[in-house]
């Protein structure tokens, strides 16, 4: 009997375990998932909680419930992977042997990596993240009674989960304050380490106006050195100071600490893998899926989804000793909330920047690419249902895993 061990029961872990269990013969393979708890959060929902669009208890479900009954789930904290011995040790002393290992333990915001950020007395008082259940819930409480002042939305460094979410947060916050009749009491600044809020030519020309239209100031090429919580200023390495009354930060995102302890990670604890197959560059029987790997694609559920589709066939070929024929292209498909009941949709991959057009069907849509529409917003809200009922169980989605040029308009340069 061979063991496939999947570390992490989130988006990539749940999908890959469920899909592989269906195709691996049960008399040859066991499939086991390891996770620390039974709370599976619909992470795209975090964005809506601060503005009361979703309630905190609406985004969490049982992991167990979404993992097929014939897949055992082991609950425990992972201590380390011994890649030579092919075992995973848990903190409680349990040792799990594997023939094939999937690392799908994602990334976590790490406020401890920026001096001052998680200082007691300011963290979750006037400095918040919104990428954790706790952070977004506490931010919702804060915003409910906040009287206004300087709101700074700040990203520490790329890569981050859902790279468009900080922009979405800024747009939704602007609409939230406007609708509350207090927009004139809030001064908004968007702070990014990138050369701009938008860095791709078409996005920049089509969306760049959104910040200026809504009177959101931009501070770009900003490398934060520390948060001076006493004087309430963000300080950069080149000594630019951005004062805040409320700081909504996206801390450095890092992979799990056990990845580092096991010698499997890069400087951010991300597992280096082949960008087309997600097979480890170091070990022939270790894969890393979703946010946990280092591929130059967005860290997003849609990427995890498309990646898993390609991975399943590659896995079967690889364990059969034949060459892998699938090649993941970095396909991502993301809604971008722009506030006031509208959203944009972008569809892109490693080589193709987000283009305008219609999606998924040329001429018909019904979604519009790189353009604000109410339907896109409804699509984003409807996606929560699809996540739990179509994606997690491993049912087919009517969107191809590899990006298609159908419906996209290529600008003539």
């Amino acid at each position, binding site marked *: 009997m061979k063991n496939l061990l999947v570390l992490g029961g989130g988006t990539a872990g749940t999908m890959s375990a469920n899909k592989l269990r269906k195709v691996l013969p049960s008399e040859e393979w066991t499939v086991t998932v390891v996770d620390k708890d039974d709370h599976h959060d619909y992470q795209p929902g975090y964005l809506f909680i601060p503005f009361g669009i979703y309630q905190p208890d609406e985004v969490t479900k049982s992991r167990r419930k979404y993992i097929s009954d014939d897949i055992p789930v082991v609950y425990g904290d992972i201590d380390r992977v011994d890649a030579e011995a092919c075992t995973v040790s848990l903190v409680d002393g349990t040792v799990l042997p594997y023939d094939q290992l999937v690392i799908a333990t994602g990334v976590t915001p790490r406020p401890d990596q920026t001096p001052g950020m998680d200082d007691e007395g300011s963290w979750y008082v006037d400095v918040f993240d919104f990428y954790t259940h706790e952070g977004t819930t506490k931010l919702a409480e804060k915003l409910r009674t906040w009287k206004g002042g300087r709101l700074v939305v700040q990203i520490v460094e*790329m890569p981050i989960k859902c*790279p468009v979410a900080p922009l979405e947060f800024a747009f939704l916050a602007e609409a939230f304050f406007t609708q509350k009749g207090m927009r004139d009491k809030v001064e908004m600044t968007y702070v990014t*380490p990138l050369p701009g809020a938008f*860095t791709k030519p078409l996005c920049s020309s089509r969306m760049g106006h959104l910040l200026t239209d809504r009177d959101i100031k931009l501070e770009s090429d900003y490398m934060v050195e520390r948060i001076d919580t006493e004087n309430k200023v963000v300080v950069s*390495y080149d000594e630019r100071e951005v004062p805040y009354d409320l700081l909504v930060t996206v801390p450095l995102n890092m992979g799990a600490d056990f990845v580092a302890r096991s010698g499997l990670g890069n*400087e951010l604890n991300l597992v280096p893998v082949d960008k087309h197959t997600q097979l480890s560059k170091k070990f022939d029987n270790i894969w890393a899926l979703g946010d946990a790997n280092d591929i*130059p694609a967005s860290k997003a559920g849609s990427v995890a989804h498309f990646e898993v589709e390609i991975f399943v066939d590659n896995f079967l070929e690889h364990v059969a000793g034949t060459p892998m024929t699938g090649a993941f292209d970095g396909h*991502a498909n993301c809604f971008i909330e722009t506030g006031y009941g509208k959203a944009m949709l972008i569809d892109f991959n490693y080589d193709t920047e*987000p283009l305008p057009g219609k999606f998924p069907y040329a001429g018909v849509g019904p979604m519009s690419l790189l353009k604000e529409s109410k339907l896109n917003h409804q699509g984003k809200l409807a996606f929560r249902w699809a996540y739990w009922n179509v994606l997690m169980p491993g049912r087919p989605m009517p969107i191809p895993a590899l990006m298609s040029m159908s419906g996209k308009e290529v600008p003539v340069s």
Partner: protein
Amino acid sequence: MPVTTIAGHEIHVDDEGFMTEYDEWSEDLGKELAAAIGVEMSDDTWGPIKFLRDDFKAEGGHTPTLRRVSTVGGFDTKKLFEMFPKKPAKKMAYIAGLPKPAGCV
């Protein structure tokens, strides 16, 4: 992609003048590109540029972030801001003949 000529070399660049062909780059070109944005190359400034070149190749075509230049390359971030004022990530990529750091949108 537009083609431009710098110091007698024909190179492919994007709309912002960033080189698009890794192998068209040379140290001579790097020096010219640096001069074009007001940076004079020295032993100190070549360090991070060479790290960027090597890391890009080793990592499969991904320009390293500023944090990576500091934590993996071992270059002090404050010094990078002194050597390549205001926009070190963008300026270093430009001189090294690599794509500028970009997000997904």
